[in-house]
């Protein structure tokens, strides 16, 4: 009698999907931008700006250091300002996004830094402007890593979204805690875990496929 009806599962699943995809879309966009800025402002790179580089780098570290559950609370005023409320699925999108931007930026930055400097030199030698180098050399050459970084980030975010129940955002994690933990319905918890495993596996599989598709290095 205390088992949730089937539509609860659907609802939770779509809440998770909504939270994660909205946050991922924004965070991956901004994170990639941050990664590019971090890469090209480094000493000896295309637009060397060591101060800006250090400032951004420190900021990214600060945001990465704060545990998600704390950020969820600490960002409440920002969330209220941006979405008008601190409760519900959309309210969870804000901390999820803020949490993911530096995480994804660092992963993408590693891929961008790994681009062979010889390719950048060749591009300069052929008369590419710096923006051409970003567009035709850095981004396409780093693309396989940028894509697999997305996979890692989205999966990490599904993880974090479970905590979003704390702000009444719903989602699969919330369902599992509410029924599995608070009402001792262990079965619900296991069912949610199975759904999560399936979701993560599909994302991983698709991510790997896409990444391989862009990889012509071998």
């Amino acid at each position: 009698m205390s088992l949730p009806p089937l539509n609860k599962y659907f609802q939770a699943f779509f809440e998770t999907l909504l939270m994660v995809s909205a946050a991922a879309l924004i965070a991956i966009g901004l994170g990639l931008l941050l990664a590019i800025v971090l890469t090209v402002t480094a000493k000896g790179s295309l637009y060397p700006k060591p101060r800006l580089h250090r400032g951004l780098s420190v900021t990214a570290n600060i945001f990465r250091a704060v545990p998600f559950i704390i950020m969820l609370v600490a960002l409440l005023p920002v969330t209220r300002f941006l979405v008008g409320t601190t409760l519900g699925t959309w309210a969870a999108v804000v901390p999820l996004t803020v949490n993911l931007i530096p995480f994804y930026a660092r992963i993408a930055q590693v891929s961008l830094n790994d681009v062979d400097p010889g390719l950048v030199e060749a591009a300069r030698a052929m008369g590419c402007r710096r923006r051409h180098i970003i567009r035709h050399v850095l981004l396409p050459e780093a693309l396989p890593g940028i894509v697999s970084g997305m996979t890692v980030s989205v999966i990490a975010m599904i993880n974090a979204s479970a905590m979003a129940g704390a702000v009444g955002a719903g989602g699969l994690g919330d369902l599992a805690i509410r029924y599995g933990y608070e009402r001792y319905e262990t079965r619900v918890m296991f069912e949610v875990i199975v759904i999560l495993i399936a979701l993560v596996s599909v994302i991983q599989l698709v991510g790997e496929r896409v990444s391989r598709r862009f990889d012509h290095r071998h």
Partner: protein
Amino acid sequence: MHLIFSKVSKQYPAPSGIVHALRDVSFTVARGEIFGIIGRSGAGKSTLLRTINALELPDAGGIAIDGLQVGGLDEDGLVHLRRRVGMIFQHFNLLSAKTVRDNVGLPLRVAGVKPDVVRQRVDALLELVGLSDKAEVYPAKLSGGQKQRVGIARALVHDPEILLCDEATSALDPESTQAILALLRDVSNKMDLTVVLITHDMAVIREICDRVLVLDHGQAVEHGEVWRVFGDPQAPATRALLRPLQHGLPADLAAQLVDDLSDLDGRPGNALLSMRFNGAAQPHGVSLQQLALLGPDATLIHGGLDRIRGHAQGNLLVSLPVASWQSIKTNGAFGQNFGQKHGADFIEVLGYVPAPA
């Protein structure tokens, strides 16, 4: 002169102190010439090459291309300059994410050339380098020689007047090296291209260069026509670089060599004579008749000649029984004209070895 270097210097700070990559390097390159720069690793050749298209800027001195000073150009000026100067690399530096066609077409694309024009130009260049069938392939599927052909096509796509080659054949097997050098010679003729190449391999210089500059610790220690430098190297660095190509004394003979006849302890022996031909006085080669004047006992044991730009130069090692050698000496024939008489520019007695049993 197409390219003029005047007193170019460049230094880097390094943990061990200041490294002088280039010191007061001056030379000129004529239009249509294939100019080689050689030196050991760390001699500064890579830096020198990169100052031509301003990938590196000198601390002092100037580089002029057709009178245009390379230093002090802004980004627009540099982009414009680099479209007149193509460059190829030791490790090819092709973009792995783009097909051969897109790699070759990229310099045009970023210059805002219309796609159908790019297509035509790329097709023409792939044909020139013999890779028409590989246009849609990704570089990872190509052999080293093929990758360098793509590199050459890409470097020539703007129809440049200068081509810079950065150790272009150092990562290739001997067969591909020959093919790439032949292609470079071919395109430099066809397109009236000035080629500046750097290498640590004297064989490359011998194969295609008209003139050569030898760099050692950032300094130009020798420069001139290739056959002259090969025939009569002056700087120690040049000699060291030439050694692998020269016919030095074979190790087994070197082990037995003694300076003085008395060290043979009365055993029968041979004198070893090294004859050098520098290709200046007798560019067409060595007269066998003149060689035969060394006498019927003389034996040619090691050596060879290379014809470089129409000048035969090289060295031969001749052994002569001690008795014959002494009669030449007592006759007074071993004097000022001894070498000339036998067609050599320089004859040196290396020493004596016991006669083979």
